[in-house]
């Protein structure tokens, strides 16, 4: 499991990447983020973009949509975890079926949040993710 040297409650800031094909959702997540330690370093609209952005920004925390054009979220999770095992990924998806959730967790996701969500639900999920 992830043994990131930085602790969430510590001073060090975390780099956040948002992956979602919907502009609204990207901005929504960005706006809802109440954690000062979490600094947005980039947003991506699909898996391929996410991987590219990962190479440039090395994020610690990722929110990941599942149904996206080009590379989908499940595959992207697998790739990201392979590149950086300590990465923490919150799946944010409208797909509410169990098999999808299990699949995502198995690929290495750390949390699962169903769309639509409230600000509170998102922040709780992020807090849970960083625990």
């Amino acid at each position, binding site marked *: 499991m992830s043994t990131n040297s930085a602790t969430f409650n510590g001073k060090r800031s975390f780099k956040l990447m948002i992956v979602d094909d*919907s*502009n*609204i*959702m990207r*901005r*929504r997540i960005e*706006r809802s983020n109440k954690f000062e330690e979490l600094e947005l370093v980039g947003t991506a609209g699909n898996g391929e973009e996410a991987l590219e952005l990962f190479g440039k920004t090395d994020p610690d925390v990722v929110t990941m949509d599942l*149904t996206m054009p080009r590379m989908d979220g499940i595959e992207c999770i697998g790739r990201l975890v392979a590149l950086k095992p300590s990465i923490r990924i919150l799946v944010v*998806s*409208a*797909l*509410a*079926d*169990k*098999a*999808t959730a299990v699949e995502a967790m198995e690929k290495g996701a750390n949390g699962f949040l*169903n*769309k*639509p*969500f*409230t600000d509170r639900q998102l922040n709780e999920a992020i807090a849970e993710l960083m625990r």
Partner: protein
Amino acid sequence: MLYEQELKTFVEGTTNFFEVAAQQPASIGSPYLMEGSPSVHEYTGVINISGKREGVVYFTAPKAMLTVLLMKMQENDFSHETMRDLVGEVANTISGNARRDFGRDFVISVPSVVSGEKPSIPLRPGHRSFIIPINWRSHSAKLVVALA
């Protein structure tokens, strides 16, 4: 025959979106039946369903409603693309709900979005659809369930 639970799942998926995303619940208006393709508003999010049931389910909303919805979501971009995103997200939610409730029987497509007042939504000819008005604030959208 469509089961009540199936219809409810689609309806709840829709109203839930308003309640959660905009913090203001939507109510449903008087539902009715329609033969042939019903009229649509400017923006429509469509999901295709196959498997035990075949057909489409779509959410169609007027621009005015989406504008207010975006405002309530503290969005300040009211571009065409954002509107499309938004109905796409509603359809996404409906699709997610349906996958949760009858994933074993249905194959549910990823939502697609069409815009304009005369889009081509491939309804099966001869289908009877359920039209469920979705009332939110002073606006009204439609959820159309056309399954057999």
